[in-house]
């Protein structure tokens, strides 16, 4: 016969085990991702050499002569991300300085949730808006802009990642101790001068970490580019032409009926692996930069 206390202790141990198991399971998600991407990529690379994958300049998996050179997809991905950053960084910094150094508490309380909401909008809705509103408007300004292009999705993604470029920048600027600002004001500097020469340099690792996370988000974004950028693997830096991104290719193949184990099926895992590695590098840099913030003060 177990005493009340013993039973309680056993239950306590049991719950500890339950909680630990739940935590441990989360590791299997990453293990699963790495396993799936590697296992099916290895099968892919038995049929397509890694050399072809990395040196060939054409990506034509659906043509009679299949060529698997990933560069068109990578260039498309980075072109869109670069356009997004060109829009997002100046706008983000402009808003971040305004919110952290000038805006009243009330304005901030309204502005922050609105900016964060930019990322909550379903990306398929952004895709619709890009294809049927932004592109037609841009076509009346930019000559020779095709119906599918990388300019419009890039601009829309620039707005979508503002939670990283504006909101996170504002967070790190807010983290700079007030006494440093006071010292600058005491020397006669204005708010703007203080923001540009004191606050931003002090908060720079957090700000840049936000930019990198934003870029990583733009690289991994799928629906906007699948809808509005076209499905045409194109090694170009011209933002007016249709292109295809890594994510766009995965969607295109997944939409078709792909037999398990076919070369097309396997190719999306190889592309996924490349995307995962790129995202991982970006996130590691961002994490490293953010860990430096804590050392500063």
């Amino acid at each position, binding site marked *: 016969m177990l005493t009340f206390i013993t039973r309680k202790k056993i239950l306590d141990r049991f719950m500890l085990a339950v909680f630990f198991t739940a935590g441990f399971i989360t*590791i299997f998600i990453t293990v699963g991702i790495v396993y799936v991407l590697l296992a099916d990529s290895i099968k892919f690379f038995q049929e397509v050499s890694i050399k072809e994958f990395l040196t060939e300049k054409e990506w034509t998996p659906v043509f009679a002569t299949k060529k698997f050179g990933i560069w068109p997809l990578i260039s498309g991905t980075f072109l869109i991300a670069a356009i997004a950053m060109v829009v997002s960084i100046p706008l983000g910094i402009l808003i971040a300085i305004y919110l952290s150094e000038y805006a009243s508490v009330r304005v901030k309380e309204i502005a922050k949730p609105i900016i964060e909401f930019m990322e909550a*909008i379903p990306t398929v809705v952004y895709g*619709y808006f890009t294809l049927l509103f932004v592109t037609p408007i841009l076509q009346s300004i930019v000559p020779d802009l095709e119906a599918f292009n990388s300019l419009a999705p890039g601009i829309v993604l620039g707005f979508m990642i503002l939670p990283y470029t504006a909101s996170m920048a504002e967070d790190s600027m807010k983290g700079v101790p007030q006494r440093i600002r006071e010292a600058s004001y005491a020397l006669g*500097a204005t708010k703007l001068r203080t923001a540009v020469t004191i606050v931003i340099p002090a908060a720079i690792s957090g700000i840049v970490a936000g930019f990198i996370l934003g870029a990583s988000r733009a690289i*991994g974004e*799928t629906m906007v580019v699948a809808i509005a950028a076209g499905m045409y693997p194109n090694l170009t830096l011209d933002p007016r032409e249709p292109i295809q991104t890594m994510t766009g290719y995965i969607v295109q193949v*997944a939409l078709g009926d792909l037999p398990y184990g076919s070369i097309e099926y396997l190719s999306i895992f190889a592309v996924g692996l490349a995307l995962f590695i790129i*995202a991982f590098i970006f996130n590691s840099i961002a994490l490293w930069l953010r860990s430096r913030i804590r050392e500063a003060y």
Partner: protein
Amino acid sequence: MNKKDKISDSKADIIYPIFGFIGFFLVISFLVTLIIDILIDGYEKLVDPSFYVSYPSRFPEKAGILSGWVGTTLVMAGAIFWSLLIGIPAGIYLEEYATKRGIIGKIEHIIELNINNLAAVPAIIYGLLALGIFVYRFQLGESILTAGLTLAILMLPVIVVNTREAIRRIPRDIREGAYAVGATKWDTVRDHILPYSLGGILTGLIIAASRAIGETAPLVTIGALTFIAFLPPSPFVSEFPFLSPEKAWELFMSPFTVLPIQIFNWVSRPQAAFQINAAAAGFVLLILTVLMNALAYYFRQKVRRKYIW
């Protein structure tokens, strides 16, 4: 600093806020334009009641979102169930039980790093994970169950982080008080930690769900269908015990579509008439996201006011 510099400097402090506000105003105009654009485009269908109770169709004027919203509801129910099942205990473990010593401490550190990293993995990679593991290796098929599990993995990091933040706000005295009267750790968690952190956990759940409900890419990857002209079987039967396990399994394993997939399909079609449907369904989805985010915001404010330690 010479005099001229000073003058231009003080002017800058008057001019900058104007530009800053214009920047912020640009963001608001972008948002408002987006909302108004899809509202106008989809208005015709939004006010048509049959749009909400019709199946997709080859004829744009007959097509509706019935199988879309039923699918979204079922998939989200699964996603919420699975993500809470793992997310809350994992969050409690990391905040309340973690010893941070020895080999266990190393594992805890890995779990923590891992959850932070998962939050930054592109959503479509989770789709590939689900395709490779759930669909082919576990043979769960392109089913409601697979979709729920996939979205649960996407929601998990948000739930864990919010659970941890909610627990961290509970002051140490509460725990010490419980231990002092002989409560075990589990007693403390059950009677104090969980009830006090529930508001914060709920906020996290709503935010995570609002992201998952619009998620399209991972579900495209696992093979959500775009044309579903039937509903999954109901698990309820007329005889006792009114719930048939076989029927329920059939429900979990049935093919599905969800609202975002339906929108994607309609946008991709060349006929302009389908784009009206896409806009209308997009507006419905957008309103759902707005409502969920507003709810989360409201809960957050309420929780902050309820427990002031």
